[in-house]
């Protein structure tokens, strides 16, 4: 722990860690967000935009006190420092910077995806002036530069903070973007106009403090103030990056990283970010379906659960219980209880290693292998699991992505799966109807799920529903609990108080 030293901020006394950047200390201690463009907590500090100036009094090189403007992002806390954020000198300096940044800015906020969550817009409201004084032409620059599959660049909006330039060496260990040319002819570009590469391009849209780098995927999809945003956890690998999930008119429109010091800091990978298609899939199962010789039959959920319970009870310890590693801790717990009631074991599918990138994305697809193992579920490799399933008299398969992972297929492709040998009576909880199962109960995607998962390092993180599931579909852990109660013939099993549709807490 660094030593804490006394300082004052706007004439109030505080204790702050020596050496910490003022910009963070001011925000932590007073809540005031000093405007900034080039500073980003997870990137090397360059101190070039000059937006974060405050007035600081501290001993100068000779020891005498000196009061001067300083950039708060690159000024470390020192003992006895006096800081003022709102003196006329500081305000004028920042206003001046804003005026320069807006001089060439196209002010096309009405058609800009960043509007509403734009630091340039916010800081201008916070402390800029409302009228531009320039009567000279704004510099024309390229409006739509494709930087690869993910990002499109609008040079006119760029404030040259160089966050994107610093991002690649910092996160990927290689340079992709550079400031090209100099002075006001500077612009961002790649070497030789190559497209951006790799699994982390999407982060540029998050760290860009203006609308210069935007996601092709999100372009013109929604105004951000109309989206409903929920903090959750990405489930596409065992890292479990903290995310915000943004929904708009009943569809997911964006997933973006949320700061988590222990897991992903400010970043997430593109594989996790661009999974919306997978989550907005049509053809969702909203009730239970029984497969019979005469064809498919819809069953009321209660009746389906009763049927499932009978099937499992009949085979008891011979039944096979398998969760996908997308299953939450709550689902895992319910399955463990069920296994106890049946005097059998519960398993989870430990998928084949797939797709790690050595940065954030791990090669374990699915968020909860660690947590399920810890609960006592036994790991099964896909081929072992398929064998067991084929041999089982009765089985219960629970969890998102279970079938593709079981079949060692790309779980993200959403393509039709090859048939699978499901033994005699197989029961599936899934989002879509699959053939070969005696009974299919409706499941939820992770973006509709309430629950917890534990990442590869043992950090427990929360999933929160960003969308309601289809009408009448309960949370999967409630479904499994209810099934368990019926297997045990609990007296109140039929009242199923928790078996409510998975409403979205508002």
């Amino acid at each position, binding site marked *: 722990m660094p030593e804490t030293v006394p300082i004052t901020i706007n004439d109030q006394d505080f204790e702050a860690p020596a050496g910490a950047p003022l910009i963070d200390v001011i925000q932590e201690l007073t809540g005031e967000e000093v405007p900034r463009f080039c500073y980003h907590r997870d990137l090397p500090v360059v101190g070039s935009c000059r937006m974060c100036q405050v007035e600081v009094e501290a001993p100068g090189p000779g020891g005498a006190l000196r009061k001067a403007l300083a950039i708060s992002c690159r000024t470390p806390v020192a003992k006895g420092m006096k800081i003022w954020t709102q003196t006329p000198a500081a305000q004028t300096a920042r206003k001046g910077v804003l005026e320069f940044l807006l001089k060439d800015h196209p002010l096309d906020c009405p058609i800009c995806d960043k509007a509403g969550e734009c630091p340039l817009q916010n800081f201008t409201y916070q402390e800029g002036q409302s009228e531009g004084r320039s009567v000279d032409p704004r510099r024309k620059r390229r409006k739509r530069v494709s930087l690869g599959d993910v990002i499109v660049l609008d040079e006119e909006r760029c404030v*040259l903070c160089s966050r994107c330039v610093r991002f690649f060496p910092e996160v990927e260990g290689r340079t992709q973007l550079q400031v090209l040319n100099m*002075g006001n002819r500077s612009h961002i570009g790649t070497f030789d106009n190559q497209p951006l590469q790799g699994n982390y391009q999407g982060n540029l849209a998050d760290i860009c403090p203006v609308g210069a780098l935007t996601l092709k995927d999100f372009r013109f999809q929604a105004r951000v103030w109309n989206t409903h945003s929920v903090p959750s956890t990405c489930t596409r690998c065992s890292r479990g990056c903290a995310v915000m999930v943004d929904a708009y008119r009943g569809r997911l429109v964006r997933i973006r990283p949320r700061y988590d010091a222990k897991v992903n800091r400010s970043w997430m990978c593109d594989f996790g970010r661009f999974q919306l298609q997978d989550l907005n899939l049509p053809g969702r199962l909203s009730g239970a379906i029984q497969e019979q010789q005469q064809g498919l039959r819809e069953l009321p959920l209660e009746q389906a659960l009763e049927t499932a319970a009978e099937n499992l009870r009949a085979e008891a310890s011979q039944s096979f219980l398998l969760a996908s590693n997308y299953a939450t801790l709550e689902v895992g717990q319910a399955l463990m209880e069920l296994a106890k009631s049946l005097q059998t074991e519960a398993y989870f599918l430990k998928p084949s290693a797939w797709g790690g990138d050595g940065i954030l994305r791990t090669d374990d697809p699915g968020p909860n292998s660690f947590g399920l193992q810890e609960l006592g579920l036994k790991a099964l490799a896909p081929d072992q699991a398929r064998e067991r399933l084929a041999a089982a008299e009765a089985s219960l398969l629970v969890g998102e992505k279970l079938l593709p992972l079981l079949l060692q297929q790309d779980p993200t492709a959403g393509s039709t799966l090859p048939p699978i040998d499901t033994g005699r009576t197989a029961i599936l909880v899934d989002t879509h109807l699959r053939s070969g199962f005696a009974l299919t109960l409706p499941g939820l995607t992770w973006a509709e799920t309430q629950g917890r998962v534990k990442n590869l390092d043992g950090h427990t993180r929360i999933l929160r529903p960003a969308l309601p599931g289809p009408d009448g579909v309960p949370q999967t852990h409630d479904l499994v609990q209810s099934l368990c109660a019926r297997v045990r013939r609990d007296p109140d099993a039929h009242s199923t108080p928790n078996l409510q549709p998975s409403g979205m807490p508002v």
Partner: protein
Amino acid sequence: MSQSFQDSPKFLTERLLRDGYGGTLAEYRAAGGYEQWRRAVTSLQPAEIIDLVKDSGLRGRGGAGFPTGLKWSFMPKDSGKPHYLLVNSDESEPGTFKDRLLLEKDPHLVLEGAAISAFAIGARTIYIYVRGEYVYPRECLDRAIQEAYEAGLLGQKLFGTDWSLDIYTHPGAGAYICGEETALMESLEGKRGHPRPKPPFPAGYGAWGQPTTINNVETVANARPILEHGAGAFRSVGTKNSPGTILVGVSGHVNRPGVYELPMGVPVRTVVDQVCGGMRNGKALKAFYVGGSSTGLLPAKDADVTLDHDAVRERGVMLGTAGLIVMDEDTSIIRATRVLADFYDHETCGQCSQCRVGMEWSYQIIRRIEEGRGHPSDLKTFADLIQNFSGGKTICAFADGAAMPFKTALLHFREEWEEAIRRANPQMADSPSEEPQTAGT
């Protein structure tokens, strides 16, 4: 103290004033060359040299006038790390061309002075960063370096001691900003020439992160005469706070433009009328940039100002590199300012928001006024812009330097600007500029 400029010693240029001096090693040695280098290595301690230079009162000739001995004393002792001396010959300031004279005509003086300076700060490697366009001066330096190596004046085990010294030249690629000390280091390291934020300062963390001192060509050249003649002799020339001689590069509307070694404290009027043979075509003096464009200009009535740090500062400008640009009565201050604004707009590195945009904006305003499209609000806006990009708000001193000619032109020639705006054609002012406005505003 105040000898007339004719009697003043020529510490740097005495050889050049002789007929037929070619600056070869043989000629330079015949004039006592490299004796001070030998003396430093064989019989002086680095600390003694630093003290001597402190006593001489030598101040940097690269622009800021920082006391050289003091700068050297910032270098760590026994750091166990390699130390570097960087010799700044980027010389790109408009109006400054004095280092070039030494590089071309007496390169061994530069090498000897640099060698002594390096010894004083414990550096065994010197990089001389030469302005990219200075192809010939660099050839002269390279030739001299080769001669010095061949004569055993550079290299390993010098003069039978353990001391060694290597000197390399490094060409710039044509960017003014690379004369700024930390941009120079970045450029030398093979990166974009972007000034670094300070601290850390070069003496602690310089080129390749090692203790580094950076000095101007003329500054290091003075090390030889200071050792040769002593601190007292150096101090006996010039003024109390600005001792010694200075190379004054005079350009513009005088009869004999050129580089002159003059005692510090010589009045500008004397330089124009006596040293340079008066104004060209008998015109009247209108204004002069004192020490390169970034130091600002003064009007003719200030021609009594003497060329030393204190005197010019009192008039609100700086001595800089003593590049005196003389302008006669026919000169348009607005046009002169626009030419400089064009330069600064082209040369700003563009890291800092205010400097990147402020230079172009300034240029646009000045050009509009010059072309008869000025707005009544322009001067207020321009003055505010200058305020907003200067005063230590940016990473390096470029923006503060650019502010000087703008500020002083507005201050001393307000009438001329106002007149131009008054005469502006109101229709022109409201007509669209040649570049179309972008949509969306």
